[in-house]
């Protein structure tokens, strides 16, 4: 890891020093440390953005829930615009993800967790395209790892609570397979269920955000390079890269929503598979 980083850093410096185009590198995601250097609580731009998003989410949901409570108490049947926004977004997770996959009863049980995961990821992703923040809170592996660990613990808990030890045996020794094949099937099942599931959850989110951010940086730094450093006819390319950068910004909005949806949906499906009765 450190090897790769130092290589990339050298390459970036070498390119930047001769006044040419400097390509974005993985260093984008390790910005300058602002405070508490050397301790466990190092603050840099990404950490500050995460704290900001967390505060914003707490305030938003506090406002929403107090609004819901007030209109419920006063029997106001027509919601205001702000309240409607909250109802639609909360209902999206509730109806389209939880109830659809888990059913009403289990859906309600796991709803708080799923709602938290969805809105946390959406909030952290969307900072990637907000001007002046410009980097997603999920673009460094720490936060996705925590969320994947939560999902991992939850689906194992759901399975063990319902099927006890049969959860593990049913997953590792699937029914209907000839006994001799368990030599092959069990390691594969173990790998795919208990190792690859959380790893891909975390990697999918992080890598999507990293790739998106690098694409945006590439487009806009190329625009800057073409406009100010290129000569003659090549300046025209800048317009092209600028349009592409704009298109990718719109695409990033879609991706940040989609990743939040996919992460929550996969967590739900893993829980649903753990709860399923057929084994």
């Amino acid at each position: 890891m450190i090897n790769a980083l130092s290589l990339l850093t050298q390459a970036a410096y070498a390119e930047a020093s001769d006044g040419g185009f400097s390509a974005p590198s993985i260093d984008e995601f390790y910005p300058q440390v602002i405070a508490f250097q050397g301790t466990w609580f190092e603050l840099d731009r990404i950490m500050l953005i995460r704290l900001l998003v967390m505060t914003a989410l707490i305030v938003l949901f506090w406002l929403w829930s107090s609004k819901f409570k007030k209109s419920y108490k006063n029997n106001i049947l027509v919601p205001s615009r702000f309240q409607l926004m909250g109802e639609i977004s909360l209902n999206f997770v509730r109806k389209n993800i939880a109830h659809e996959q888990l059913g009403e009863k289990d859906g309600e049980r796991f709803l708080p967790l799923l709602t938290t995961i969805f809105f946390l990821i959406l909030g952290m992703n969307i900072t990637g395209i907000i001007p002046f923040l410009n980097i997603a809170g999920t673009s460094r592996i720490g936060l996705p790892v925590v969320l994947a660990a939560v999902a991992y613990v939850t689906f194992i808990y759901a399975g063990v609570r319902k099927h006890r030890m049969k959860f593990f045996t049913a997953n590792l020794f699937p029914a209907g397979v000839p006994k001799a094949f368990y030599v092959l099937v069990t390691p594969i099942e173990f790998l795919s269920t208990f190792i690859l599931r959380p790893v891909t959850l975390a990697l999918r989110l992080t890598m999507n955000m990293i790739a998106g951010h690098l694409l945006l940086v590439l487009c806009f730094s190329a625009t800057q390079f073409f406009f100010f450093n290129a000569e003659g006819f090549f300046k025209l390319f800048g317009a092209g890269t600028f349009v592409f950068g704009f298109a990718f910004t719109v695409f990033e909005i879609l991706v940040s929503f989609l990743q939040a949806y996919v992460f929550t949906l996969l967590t739900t499906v893993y829980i649903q598979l753990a709860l399923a009765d057929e084994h």
Partner: protein
Amino acid sequence: MDVNNIAELSGNIAVVGYGLAAIGPGIGVGLVVSKTIESIARQPELASKLQVTMWLGIAFTEALALIGLATPFIFV
């Protein structure tokens, strides 16, 4: 003309590796989506259910490309 330097390439071989790693998932995602579109065309009332399955299929297929993207950072 310098014979030793007719076609020089500079850069990282890992880029070619990632290009290769992206082929499979690219085809895979294409297949998933095309089959979903086909099924929705045959049975439009199942569209919402099929779409959920489609996103799951895409998520699993795409994971391979993303593992490819992550590998250079870990193993280089």
